[in-house]
């Protein structure tokens, strides 16, 4: 099927592919902020945070190559 013309390399990049995951990260952050401020859940810290941990780790994983590259570049420059 025909695709829209994409002369912008960003739209074929890994980062662009991760945009939906970034949105989900924002959603997770909104939920956490609401839980800490407005919602006042009865649950303790473990019950509140532990279930979210696998998703938080999963959402961070694809960004690790960028972190490694940045760390390497910084080290090479110095």
């Amino acid at each position, binding site marked *: *099927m*025909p*695709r*829209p013309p*994409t002369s912008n390399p960003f*739209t*074929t990049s*890994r980062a*662009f*592919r*991760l*945009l*939906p*995951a970034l*949105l*989900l990260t*924002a*959603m*997770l952050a*909104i*939920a956490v902020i*609401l*839980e800490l401020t*407005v*919602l006042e*859940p009865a*649950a303790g810290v*473990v*019950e*509140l945070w*532990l*279930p*979210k*941990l*696998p*998703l938080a780790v*999963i*959402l961070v*994983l*694809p960004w690790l190559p960028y972190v490694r590259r940045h760390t390497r570049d910084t080290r090479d420059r110095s």
Partner: protein
Amino acid sequence: MELFLELTTFAFCAVVAAHAWRLRGLRGLSFLFALLVLGFVRENFVVLRDILYGYGDLLTLGAAPILGAVIWGYSLYVAVCWTEVMTGERLDDLLPSPRFLLLVGLFMMALVGFYEPFLDLVDMARWQDGTRKTLGMPWIALIGYPSLTVPFVKLWCRLTRVGSSLLRRTLLSVTVPVLAIAHAWGLAQLKELLSW
């Protein structure tokens, strides 16, 4: 609060639709549309048959909240995009590998830990009394989320390779709603069987 959360989710889904178009063109929009139909049919079936869970006072389309349909579509699309990055495979490639299917299923299971306790906290989703949970996560949801995602991805990848456009659309129009209903019904049966 509910309206804020609903509108935020709808806005994010609109961004995801733009993403699907930009990245994948018409096929991406078709994929997302099929996901929304999947969610819409499934959630209406759940509400009409009064199985698994109910909803709070939310904006509805048919019998079920729009949020129910939208969140399935949005979540599955995010799961697929994430898995494509992690595996290097693309949904347009040959049929997805077992590794792809495993990762997309694991992503959906991880979503249970976010969605279910939060939806319970804001009283937007209400599981049946007696639903077994740990840390706010219904056990049955840990099966339910991936068990809809993986068959759908396989179905999509198979059917989009059908040569005839008309046949492809016809098959999708029939199989996606059937999958949605079969999944909801099957999960309810399993929940009863296991007393979960």
